[in-house]
């Protein structure tokens, strides 16, 4: 049996296990974002949005839908990998992979694919729900799919690194609570940064989530506050950096091997 064949089967095994895990607990993984986003659509889109009027040249509901889809994709991709990998560490079932001939990159790709699968699954659910509230146009399908996948990969890697260093369950909620959620809310999900004073526009440009939200919004509506090419380059660059760091951590056995 060639090493490549073993790695391919092992990769499929990890992905299947990850998908089976989040499907088994769908009440905790798929249902909550559907309910939360529906509430956003009703309260911000319908009730408040109808009084706001247009933003970026489109009605407010249409403006916030891409941001809310992107928000649900990145939080779920991150949450899936951080909770699943930490749970594997906590129960020591990570040792099942460590005693097997699975390469670190295979483990990483398997967990990241699991995170992307959940992120995309939630993204599809939220998109379908949004169709009840507004009509979604597709300005550029390639940009839409590309930015969703790259963002999900990047945040899955972030979740993986978080889980490697986490020593207790509280540790995997610190980054989402204190970093990802504030950056998402300040990342142009609900507003265009052109509404901000110049200084805060400049500060907002340092927020990576702004680029993801705006690139996805460009794919849907053709409206953006940023350079789409720059956004894609930045995503690929950070995926490369976090990916290399994650493999290095796995090879060292950080948080796993004594």
């Amino acid at each position, binding site marked *: 049996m060639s090493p490549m064949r073993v790695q391919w089967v092992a990769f*499929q*095994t990890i992905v299947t296990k990850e998908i089976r895990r989040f499907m088994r607990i769908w009440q905790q993984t798929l249902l909550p974002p559907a309910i939360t986003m529906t509430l956003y659509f009703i309260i911000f889109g319908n009730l408040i949005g109808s009084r706001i009027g247009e933003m970026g040249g489109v009605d407010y509901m249409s403006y916030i839908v891409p941001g809310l889809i992107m928000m649900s994709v990145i939080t779920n991709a991150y949450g899936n990998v951080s909770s699943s990998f930490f749970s594997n560490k906590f129960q*020591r*079932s990570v040792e099942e*992979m*460590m005693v097997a001939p699975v390469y670190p990159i295979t483990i990483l790709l398997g967990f990241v694919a699991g995170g992307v699968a959940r992120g995309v699954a939630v993204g599809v659910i939220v998109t379908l729900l949004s169709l009840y509230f507004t009509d979604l146009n597709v300005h550029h399908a390639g940009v839409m799919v590309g930015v969703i996948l790259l963002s999900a990969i990047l945040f899955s890697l972030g979740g993986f690194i978080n889980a490697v260093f986490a020593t207790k369950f509280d540790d995997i909620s610190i980054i989402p609570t204190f970093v990802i959620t504030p950056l998402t809310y300040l990342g142009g999900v609900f507003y265009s940064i052109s509404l901000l004073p110049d200084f805060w526009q400049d500060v907002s440009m340092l927020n990576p989530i702004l680029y993801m939200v705006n690139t996805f919004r460009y794919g849907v509506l053709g409206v953006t506050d940023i350079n789409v090419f720059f956004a894609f380059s930045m995503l690929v660059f950070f995926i490369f950096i976090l990916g290399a760091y994650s493999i290095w951590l796995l090879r060292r056995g950080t948080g796993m091997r004594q």
Partner: protein
Amino acid sequence: MVAALAVENLSKVYGNGFEALKGITLEVQKGDFFALLGPNGAGKSTTLGIISGLVQKTAGNAYVMGHDVNGDAFDARRSLGVVPQEFNFNQFEKVYDIVVTQAGYFGLRPAEAKANAEELLKALDLWDKRDTPSRMLSGGMKRRLMIARALVHKPDVLILDEPTAGVDIELRRSMWEFMEELNRKGTTIILTTHYLEEAEQLCRNIAIINKGEIVQCTSKRELLSQLTTETFVFDLCEPVPEGFALEEFECAIPAEDTLEVTVEKGQSINRIFSLLTEKNLEVRSMRTKSNRLEELFVNLVRESNS
């Protein structure tokens, strides 16, 4: 011939400065049933952890079927099955899924993985529990699940780190039979256990480790021949008379109808019976005071400590 397991000058110093292994060397031949014995904290699990890739070595080398566990980890791990001391499976997964998933990590295609899982779960009496979440299993079932999981890729070498800890005697005996059968079919087995009668029953070669050093590494026969004395307990039909003594034997009377006799190498047990018959004492039953290997183990560890 390539050894199933070879360890050369293996050392491990943990981050807190504790020196768990002090350059141990040992070799286990293919087809052997080998015991690695030692008191708690002696270095057994550290040794097995390094071999299976769960612990980082500080120095030295370890080979499984000739493959370096660090330099050629892929082939070394494919040859190895590991049953750890602690339960380390996902408590929420079903029994069948745990075994099939492990097969996938070793590159087995789904059809082969499912066939192997079914065969092992049936052999280990877990087939009826295949759809049960692992957390719902009893302690003995969890131990058997870990054995099934470790064997699903049909490894050449199986490491069993205290596989029968906390298992009732009936189940332990059925597990012994399973392991003996496995060994007969050609799997090399390396066992650590605190039940020394288990090691005496199953193993052909034994290493005793204490404070990170190998105290003895030899065949069971050779090891047991080092015993210079053995104590037998005789249950008598009537009380032992006051001032009782057995001429050439050292005796103790722990209860009024019980006699403990220490027999030195070269002395005959028949002689004890003759002497008891002469003194009109009838023996109801006889047993060894402790397991032979246990006695030897205690002596060797005590010597090593001093």
